[in-house]
């Protein structure tokens, strides 16, 4: 028996009264229960972006390399030359991971991989950007966070390793604001021939509509609606919304789809992600300017007695919808039987523009597809500007011994080595990880295209909390800087906007500021946004997360020899700091770790300076003189130097002199801790052979870049000499603090 539509039921479906009125007007009648479900998922934030669409229009989306723009298809596509292109995108699985970390993260990986091969691209690598609450300590929150970290990392490893797509990098950081609401953002990149981009349109009236992949079950019912609400205690009751991933089936589906696409039989292809069969049918119809009619009796099912509502809203994994050119149906049979996967012709492309779903011979759902997919209401949410953050005067901070501070910063899990994480990810499969995890950006050799790609994900949530606009700009700048340090030119961006409930005006203000910051920065760096994802309602009973607009950026290394790593290579090389010593400690990890303050004005980004610094470094790299390059980020110069000494396979020391440095402008009256740990932007530590140092000086002078000769590579200590005396850390001591911090915390037993 189907429930009667009551205002209460409408509310439970997350639809407002106005939205319900709009639905009635659109249909010219009351929707039935199944149709209500269909509208509720399609008009959820997750599928419709109803609260953010206006904002997203602010992103620059065009560029000479852009082949498929943001929003056109399942993922953007950019040209990498010689007939080759890449499709890439980032996707979040925050809420599912909060409830069931292993499966939540695993299905997140599966989902983004499907988005990529839907474009006809072979997935070649994955990245991930993770945020958790603190993992150190003997309290319930820390225990819970540790469980989340273990589960999420194992889940990503499970899916990515099994399906054979290497996870080559990412980021992970830890902060109270993510207690109970972790962020799990996953990026996938695939490669394809420019001429072979697949489309998600139901084109060709009369063409057959095929369902391929795993059978539909009751798992993941209405996950899209679930992702569009706050995380509360009741979310636990939402648990059936968690899906189980099957990377083995995912692998078969990937191979079968790519094989079928090669055969030329496919007119359109669309993955079944959020809102499953519902979303894929109405979106393909909408894109094709057609209608789609399917018969539920023909849908492969895992369970018996499923209602139309359940079948349409199920989010069972590893399923695709394929529109097949008429006369080519046999190809589907051949390919999917070869790969032992279920497939069924479930309907046809029609010309009347309706999404029509037959059940027992009659139309259970009959909705104009275009309106359903594209005409969700669009809202302009209210904004409220929060109070400015507490300002910080250095003179109010008691001086803390920098020798100890560096150790503490290195042991902070946000800075500490992530080897516990990335060793669980297969990064060597597909034999292309030229620079594996552990350097500023990952570098991957795409063998089929003979191209070297660099990739990074970045976002400093502290900056974004204190100033979302500046923080977002810096996220883009840092991503570009990481790519530049690895020898690449930045090409394009995908982003994942992780924010709180948009109905809270302060939250919406954060989002708008961040979007405008990202947009401006992407324009300046000439890296168009080719796609991304929005995840709102990231809140737990303790409050809203720090705003986290994660940036994923892809770059191209045009000559293999320009590939550069972050760690020192050779004894005797000269160490330079490009960009000056800096003095901004607002929003720094130093303030947070040593003084317990998330406060102050975060560093300012000067675009012109940043662009000049990056251009200068790329020029040096192209001349072949740079042996290592690493930017200063969290923890400032001191942490960057320590990482240069020990993030490579072999540890190697450095002798640094901060006093009497030539070219340092602001150092004279500055407290040593500020010089060591400030996070002023646009600064990069490089090492070059000593015979090249003159050239570096000349080029810097010519480009008007501030350049400081810091010292030289060598020895078994990191030594920093300043007018306050000499600080010296044995490398083993630094390494011990840094290398095992995360592993030690996570090896504890927790219930």
């Amino acid at each position, binding site marked *: 028996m189907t429930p009667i539509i009551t205002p209460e039921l409408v509310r439970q479906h997350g639809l407002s009264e106005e939205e319900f009125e709009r639905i009635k007007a659109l249909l010219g009648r009351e929707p039935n229960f199944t149709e209500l479900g269909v509208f509720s998922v399609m008009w959820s934030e997750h599928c419709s972006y109803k609260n953010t669409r206006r904002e997203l229009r602010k992103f620059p989306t065009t560029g000479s390399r852009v082949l498929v723009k943001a929003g056109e298809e399942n993922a953007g596509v950019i040209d990498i030359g010689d007939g080759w292109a890449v499709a890439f995108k980032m996707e979040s699985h925050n809420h599912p991971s909060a409830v069931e970390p292993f499966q939540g993260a695993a299905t997140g990986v599966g989902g983004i991989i499907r988005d990529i091969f839907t474009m006809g691209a072979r997935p070649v690598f994955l990245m991930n950007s993770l945020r958790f609450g603190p993992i150190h300590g003997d309290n319930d929150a820390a225990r819970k966070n540790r469980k989340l970290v273990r589960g999420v990392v194992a889940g990503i490893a499970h899916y990515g*390793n099994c399906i*054979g797509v290497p996870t080559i990098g990412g980021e992970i950081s830890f902060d109270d604001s993510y207690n109970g609401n972790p962020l799990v953002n996953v990026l996938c990149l695939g490669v394809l021939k420019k001429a072979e981009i697949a489309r998600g349109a139901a084109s060709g009236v009369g063409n057959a509509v095929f369902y391929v992949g795993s059978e539909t079950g009751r798992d993941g019912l209405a996950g899209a609606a679930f992702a569009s609400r706050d995380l509360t205690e009741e979310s636990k009751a939402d648990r059936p919304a968690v899906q189980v991933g099957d990377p083995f089936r995912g692998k078969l589906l990937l191979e079968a789809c790519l094989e079928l696409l090669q055969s030329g039989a496919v007119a359109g292809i669309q993955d079944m992600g959020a809102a499953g069969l519902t979303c894929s049918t109405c979106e393909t119809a909408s894109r094709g300017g057609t209608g789609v009619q399917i018969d539920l009796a023909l849908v492969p099912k895992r369970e018996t007695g499923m209602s139309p509502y359940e079948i349409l809203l199920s989010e069972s994994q590893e399923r695709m919808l394929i529109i097949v050119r008429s006369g080519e149906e046999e190809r589907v049979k051949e390919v999917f039987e070869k790969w*032992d996967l279920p497939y069924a012709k479930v309907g046809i492309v029609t010309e009347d523009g309706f999404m029509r779903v037959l059940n027992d011979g009659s139309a259970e759902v009959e909705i104009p597809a275009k309106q359903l997919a594209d005409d969700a209401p669009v809202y302009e949410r209210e904004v409220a500007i929060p109070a400015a953050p507490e300002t910080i005067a250095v003179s109010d901070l008691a001086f803390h011994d920098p020798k100890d501070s560096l150790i503490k910063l290195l042991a902070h899990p946000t800075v500490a080595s992530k080897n516990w994480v990335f060793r669980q990810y297969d990064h060597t499969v597909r034999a292309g990880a030229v620079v594996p995890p552990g350097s500023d950006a990952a570098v991957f050799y795409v063998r089929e295209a003979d191209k070297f790609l660099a990739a990074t994900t970045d976002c400093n949530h502290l900056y974004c909390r204190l100033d979302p606009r500046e923080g977002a700009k810096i996220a883009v700048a840092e991503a570009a800087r990481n790519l530049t340090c690895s020898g690449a030119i930045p090409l394009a961006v995908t982003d994942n906007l992780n924010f709180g409930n948009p109905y809270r005006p302060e939250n919406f203000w954060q989002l708008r500021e961040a979007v405008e910051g990202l947009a401006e920065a992407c324009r300046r760096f000439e890296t168009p946004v080719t796609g991304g994802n929005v995840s709102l309602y990231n809140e737990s009973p303790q409050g809203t997360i720090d705003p986290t607009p994660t940036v994923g950026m892809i770059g191209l290394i045009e000559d293999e020899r320009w590939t550069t790593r972050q760690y020192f290579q050779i004894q005797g090389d000269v160490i330079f700091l490009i960009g000056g010593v800096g003095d901004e400690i607002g929003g720094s990890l130093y303030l947070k770790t040593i003084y317990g303050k998330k406060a102050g004005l975060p560093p300012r980004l000067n675009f012109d300076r940043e662009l000049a610094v990056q251009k200068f470094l790329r020029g040096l790299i192209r001349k072949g003189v740079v042996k290592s390059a690493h930017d200063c980020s969290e923890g400032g110069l001191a942490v960057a130097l320590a990482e240069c000494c020990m993030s490579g396979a072999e540890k190697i020391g450095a002798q640094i002199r901060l006093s009497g440095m030539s070219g340092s402008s602001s150092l004279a009256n500055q407290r040593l801790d500020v010089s060591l740990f400030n996070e002023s932007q646009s600064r990069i530590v490089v090492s070059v052979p000593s015979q090249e140092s003159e050239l570096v000086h000349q080029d810097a002078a010519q480009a008007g870049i501030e350049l400081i000769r810091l010292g030289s590579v060598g020895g078994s200590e990191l030594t920093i000499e300043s007018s306050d005396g000499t600080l010296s850390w044995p490398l083993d001591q630094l390494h011990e603090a840094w290398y095992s911090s995360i592993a030690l915390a996570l090896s504890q037993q927790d219930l």
Partner: protein
Amino acid sequence: MKIAVVRFPGSNCDQDCLRALTDGLGVKAEYVWHKETSIAGFDAVILPGGFSYGDYLRCGAIAAFSPVMQSVIKAANSGMPVFGICNGFQILCETGLLRGALIRNRSLLFLCQPVCLKLENNRTPFTRLSDEGAIFRMPIAHGEGAYYADEQTLEELEEGGQVVFRYVNEDGQPTSEANPNGSRNNIAGICNPAGNVLGLMPHPDRSWDHRLGSEDGLQLFKSLVETLLSVAA
């Protein structure tokens, strides 16, 4: 001369193996589908890594019963070189072509990292171009790579020279720290008594190109090709 790279559903190093042979060495290699019942026309077989049949139940367990494996078993028993890498090694153990089993890493975690290996037997078709004692660098990437066999089997393997590769440190010592997964006797690879069947957990198929930081793996494929050529000659 033609080398078969078997593709099981869930294989994911099939392409890496094929490319090591075709791009790395310029020899002829082709995929063979798991449903094939014959490997006629091939001179050697590579069982690549991955997660055959999802590695559900036990790594390699279901693959061992696939149609193609029945002909690989026959060919191996009549002397054809068969090389199982990672999941391929697990499959060889499951079929009984190699002794012992591969169980969960002692850390219980999947591990992807470079390791050092010491060559202990250069009398196999895969190792004849190197000296015993040579150190190889290759990555491992597995969750269930700890080699296990009972005492008696271990003794027989050691005495019969069937331990081909061992995990060692930079100095060539098979220490406990150099053992990434808890393998007994630091065993990374073994062969059958005749030497024509080799199983190896680390990945030569990911270390055959200078871009990957090590070309040591290429040596194994080169040896195989030389062997096949010398037989043909």
